[in-house]
């Protein structure tokens, strides 16, 4: 197929240029090559399959692990103009599922969770359709050695065969060589038949900094000082909903910035309003939980502050990647006080089953429902792992997480270029002439002594925040509906 990708991008989607890697990946797909793409967050993953679907007029099936993620993607796809989109998830009730399955052929973009595809009835229905592109998002979930292993992902190789081996696009933000090989093996593909496209993790327009504080009080005060002055919009990440809410209240009262909390525990309508306000520039800052990504694509976020330590370097890189998508300077700040480490260790203890729980579940396997928290245990139980073997797997997993956490803490205390330290985990190095020491990290310049100057020099106030906003109800309805004549 001969297609002018550049002009299609402009005419059909209104973008002037591709993001790095997008064009190469699309060319691969149009020449029918299975592709494994390692793209950083915000690298425009959605556009890839959306554009392929739109130009080839084929049906696209996307496997994605989390409901919240899928809903975000559905709305993003709709935002970009595709309306024939549906998501098959466990969030649907019985009736909705029945109706959607019956009319599945009306949709061009079908999202499904891997659990859904394990269902015979669902798979039968999908088999009756022609799938032109099979997309596996967050493909690293397929690897038992990866941090987010989802046993249901192992089934996807079979699903792919059942669908008649359609063209396949595997995508993830970060994956080591081992994980990449795992993805290809588990999908029953030949390494030689898969094109791998690995994009650099480095984001030169994001300045890296971290500050070690004596305790929570000092950390809170530092956060207030930063928020008072930093030119927004910005995101502050927390590892708990309650702390995010608390901070939003404090920051609203202690600064003149407009701050709201945003997390999965809030009702959808409320979240929608906040998301929309942030998009429109009516909010300066959101206090978010790291587990809950915003579905929106906001290009002009200027800073990301981590109030709590992220679980690992991969998550950290993903989360700071939300700022500076417009390629303008952005700022990443990590605030740390020694107790933060224990907070993360508690989180690890809470997510990995301990020996007692494991023993109980092995003795009472009926309790191993499909509940999310037991999914992984159930997988090992069903696959004949003995109690000792399963214990070893989880012990190993705990150790790995602890060592990832150690690496994260090492980043905070690192006495050298932070960029080098971050990129080390992705086997990426920068030569001296690829670096800009004036805009790199707080090791290379005295950032903390002069951050106000940095702020004034690099972080540009968004134009959106000064737009006219209607106040009275008369003005609001006049603004809402643009009347001809």
């Amino acid at each position, binding site marked *: 197929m001969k297609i002018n990708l550049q002009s299609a991008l402009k005419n059909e989607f*209104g973008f002037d240029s591709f993001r790095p890697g997008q064009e190469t990946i699309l060319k691969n797909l149009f020449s029918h090559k299975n592709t494994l793409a390692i793209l950083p967050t915000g690298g425009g993953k959605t556009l890839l399959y959306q554009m392929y679907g739109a130009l080839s007029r084929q049906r696209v099936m996307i496997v994605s692990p989390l409901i919240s993620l899928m*809903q975000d993607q*559905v*709305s*993003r796809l*709709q*935002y*970009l*103009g595709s309306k024939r989109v*549906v998501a098959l998830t466990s969030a*649907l009730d019985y*009736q*909705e599922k029945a*109706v*959607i399955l019956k009319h599945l052929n009306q949709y061009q973009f079908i999202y499904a969770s891997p659990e859904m595809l394990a269902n015979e009835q669902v798979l039968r229905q999908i088999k009756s359709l022609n799938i032109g592109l099979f997309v596996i998002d967050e493909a690293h979930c397929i690897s038992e050695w990866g941090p987010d292993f989802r046993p249901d992902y192992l089934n996807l190789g079979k699903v792919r065969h059942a669908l008649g081996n359609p063209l396949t696009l595997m995508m993830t933000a970060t994956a080591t060589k081992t994980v990449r090989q795992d993805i290809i093996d588990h999908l029953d593909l030949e390494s030689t038949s898969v094109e791998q496209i690995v994009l650099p993790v480095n984001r030169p327009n994001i300045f890296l900094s971290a500050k070690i504080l004596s305790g929570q009080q000092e950390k809170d005060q530092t956060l207030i000082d930063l928020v008072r002055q930093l030119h927004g919009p910005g995101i502050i990440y927390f590892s708990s909903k309650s702390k995010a809410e608390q901070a939003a209240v404090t920051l*609203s009262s202690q600064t003149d910035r407009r701050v*709201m909390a945003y997390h999965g525990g809030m009702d959808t*309508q*409320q979240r*929608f*309003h*906040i*998301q*929309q*306000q942030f*998009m*429109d520039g*009516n909010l300066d800052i959101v206090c978010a939980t790291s587990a809950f990504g915003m*579905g*929106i694509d906001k290009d002009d976020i200027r800073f990301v502050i981590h109030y709590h330590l992220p679980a690992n370097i991969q998550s950290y890189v993903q989360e700071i990647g939300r700022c500076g998508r417009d390629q303008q300077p952005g700022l990443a700040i990590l605030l740390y006080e020694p107790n933060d480490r224990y907070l993360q260790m508690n989180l690890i203890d809470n997510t990995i089953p301990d020996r007692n729980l494991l023993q109980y579940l092995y003795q009472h396997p009926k309790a191993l429902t499909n509940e999310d928290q037991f999914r992984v245990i159930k997988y090992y139980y069903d696959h004949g792992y003995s109690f000792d073997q399963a214990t070893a797997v989880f012990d190993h997993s705990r150790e790995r997480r602890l060592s990832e956490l150690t690496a994260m803490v090492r980043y905070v205390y690192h006495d050298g270029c932070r960029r080098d330290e971050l990129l080390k985990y992705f086997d990426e190095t920068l030569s001296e002439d690829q670096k800009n020491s004036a805009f790199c990290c707080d090791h290379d310049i005295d950032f903390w002594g002069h951050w106000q100057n940095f702020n004034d020099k690099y972080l540009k106030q968004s134009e959106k925040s000064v*737009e006219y*906003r*209607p*106040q*009275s*109800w008369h003005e*609001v*309805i*006049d*603004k*809402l*509906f*643009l*009347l*001809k004549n």
Partner: protein
Amino acid sequence: MELSILLLIFGSSEQFRRVKAIKNTLRGRRTVSNLYWALQYDMLDFVDSLHGTGFGEDEVAVKQLKVHGLADTDDNFQFKLTAKGADQQEKYLSRLLPLKYLALGSRYDVAKFMRRFSFAVQIVSEFSYTNNKYYPQSINYFEDQLLKRWFVQTKHTDLPAQFHQLLNGFLNGLANDELANLFVQSLVGHGFSGLTADQIATQAHSDVTVVNLEWLQTYGVLLERVLKLPNDNPFKMLTVGLEKPIIAQSAKETFEMFVHQENGSLNTIAQKRRVKLTTVYEHLLEAAIMLPVTKFPYKALIQPESKRHLEASHPVNVGSWTFEAAKQEIPDLSFFEFRLFQIYRSKSADEN
């Protein structure tokens, strides 16, 4: 919503009222016991009016009222408003629209209408700016489909102008700019992102619960307005399927079967309906509570003998008469007859 505020609104300074019964009435738990107390508290119009709303713990709410001297409580989670509580109630009632606009939620799913309307505003607002790059609100599959169909069928009718006109008329009709300003903040559209209830409450130094009640009430007023429009009006379709039955479907079927086969035995009905006899009693009691007193065949269900005994021995306040006390007077009295009699007397007193 904060339960303590609802308790103040629906409490009484003359009668001890059950916290649980008020909460369950508002969220539509239709047990005979709840409905019976709703009748005694004059709350039948509010059954299910706050369906799906989360409330806090009973204990916490009651404690809060007590600590602030707003209510007295007894050991059975019943409470009665103090003079200060009655004052506070008065303040809420004067701030809110008449409660009948909240009661509308008992007959129509106002919360669903609110989400539909707000989504429709977004669609039409972006349409009026010929923009199709936006994040749609999305409710759930069926609601999204309804909105899609509605838009396809009506977009040729100059919707932006129609919306403007509807809202202008409605908001002017409220004759309360403060409330009208609050209403429009529930909307989202092109370049306008509204406010959350929390944000409004903070700005207006009000309670989030009060803001949410005000939203429900104003949407109630709007819904009434839309329901009165002619059937071919484009807004009419946004009210499809919002109506709620007054009596639960299965109770209704039992009741109708009883009415049709005059004086048929309740055992036969239980067999035909494949339910327990006690369930038949419950269904009939629900019908008795929810229907006007003249629409229910009390005579056929309370034996003349029992009726005579009941009339002779009931205390002045029939509503709080306990079955145990009644049994002392009338040893072979059944609970079913006893409750029916209570309902009959309470409703007759109300309707006179």
